[in-house]
């Protein structure tokens, strides 16, 4: 079931109330919104700005600065492929190409079936068992193209 704009508004109201009075609340608010909705609806920018006494440009500037925040609804699961040096030393380029081919997308894209959004990561901290892939919060090490197929199949059926 897709959440309606009214549901989103109610979620934002609650999150803003929960963070009222906290020092430096913008990032925690943005995290809370994205945790619950999967993304930060552009329509929320003005309301967050008003609540924090910031300009819309400032809020937009923060959202667009950080790679993690997104303003479009992602697929059901987000696949992060690490492309940093330790993973490169273990041929993550093959895993990366395989992920793009299999899902039929470039980084930032969502597979046609709406299941996976593919994102790059710059180190997931699993550098002694590279290449590394993270799906939502689940981490996988030594991810060869073959292992990636098995992992994606597993998630596709969840």
């Amino acid at each position, binding site marked *: 079931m897709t959440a309606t704009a009214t549901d989103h508004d109610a979620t934002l109201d609650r999150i803003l109330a929960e963070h009222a009075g906290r020092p*430096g609340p913008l990032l925690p608010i943005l995290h809370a919104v994205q945790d619950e909705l999967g993304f930060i609806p552009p329509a929320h920018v003005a309301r967050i700005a008003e609540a924090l006494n910031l300009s819309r440009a400032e809020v937009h500037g923060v959202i667009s600065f950080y790679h993690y925040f997104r303003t479009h609804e992602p697929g059901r699961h987000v696949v992060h492929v690490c492309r940093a040096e330790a993973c490169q030393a273990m041929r993550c380029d093959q895993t990366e190409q395989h992920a793009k081919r299999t899902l039929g997308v470039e980084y930032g894209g969502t597979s046609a079936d709406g299941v996976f959004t593919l994102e790059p990561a*710059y180190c997931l*901290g699993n550098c002694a068992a590279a290449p590394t892939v993270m799906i939502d919060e689940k981490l996988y090490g030594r991810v060869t193209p073959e292992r990636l197929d098995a992992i994606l199949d597993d998630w596709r059926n969840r």
Partner: protein
Amino acid sequence: MGVRIYVSRDAAAQALGADETAAALQVAAAAKGQSIALTRVGSRGMVWLEPLVEVEDAAGKRIAYGPVTPELVPDLVRAGLFEAASNTLRVGRVEDLPWFAKQERLTFARVGLIDPVSVDDYLAHGGFAGLRRALTLTGAEIVHEVLESGLRGRGGAAFPTGIKWRTVLEQHSPQKYVVCNADEGDSGTFSDRMLMEGDPLCLVEGMIIAGLAVGATMGYIYLRCEYPHAGHALREAIAAARERGFLGPDVCGSGKAFELEVRMGAGAYICGEETALLESLEGKRAEVRYRPPLPAIKGLFGQPTIINNVISLASVPIILERGAAFYRDYGMGRSRGTLPIQLAGNLRHGGLVEKAFGITLRELLYDFGGGSASGRPLRAVQVGGPLGAYIPDSQFDTPLDYEAFTAIGALVGHGGIVAFDDTVDMARMARYAMEFCAVESCGKCTPCRIGSTRGVEVIDRIMAGKDRQANLAQLESLCETMQHGSLCGLGGMTPFPVMSALKHFPVDFSRDR
């Protein structure tokens, strides 16, 4: 009480199936009618043996088996795993393995041994002894102890921790802060993550001591969002410490307050730079600040702020417990104490090795690392993350020491070592360094923001063989501008991997492809 079993909850162990192994052990025990007490612990650091399972034998010794992937569990249990029987995966006591026995584990002493979020376990293994001593000292005495220990910032900049603390102590302000930089973004590094997942109370203790030392009552741990597991462990540990009176308005009945909160980053490498991190904590774009003023004078919300890396803060409890001289007696030259070194990339035995400064790269790569995972010769290693130099075999005998590394134009940084075999294309690695800088630049200064993109283009032309000599000269000139003209280390140090690749592996830049 059944047989005691220990399985890691560390993210690296989970990435290799530790959760599934733990579940399979429970299923196998139930099927056998065997009662077991399974504790999830941190990782012992031997990532190639994960998932590692330790079984306490009749004599109370922990016998390790690894790697125990979930599908092997039923057979292993049938063959006597719960009785600590012999089998092909049995490696014996971890403490007896040369890889482990040769280490000097001070900061990581408890990691892998204890339930990371149990205050009782922590206390039983010497936890909070440093805090108890700190509570008997004045702020100035605590600062003096840290200063005398010789501890330098383990995040990478190696600035003396005690000097930062002294500066904050000297400020007069109603509100001071302690901020932990847990934005461990360097590729090939994971010691912060392992510490936070395996012994988060050690970091909590270090931060409380820092607060007592300078009169700060609020601490923030700025954690990168790529580390959700560490976030869970930290929040559990903080709640447990608060419940037992180690955090809150009256720390251990001292009348002094200290509170702690975890704040999540949002995927910006630049937040590892301390002033960018402070901007981010304040809810802004993480643009690097001009210095002065130093964060110790005007830091978070404009107030005096201690900002230290995870390992720096987590090294403080043992310094307070055992005294400055104990810690200072490890190491060489001006690099005192121990460094948790991370062996990563193409190595057979990757993982975490804590050693006193002075060990050579070659010992780390071959004696500990076991050479390459691929079986091919090692060609280059990058030490200190994406801004660290690439080092060739001819320099592998350099001892791990801040000054010795500086002398060869390299960087110890946060102690991450990424090894590459002879299939590596160093021109591509140089290109990646520029590309990474372009992706992660905060955009505030021009040499970094524009220079990195121009750098990618110049290296592309070199790799394509277009006017190679002129473009190589252009690359050197560009690197010089970035190094001297950038506001912080991102733009200022991206030239290190680029120029070291060019200097030590010129053939990769001159061959036709």
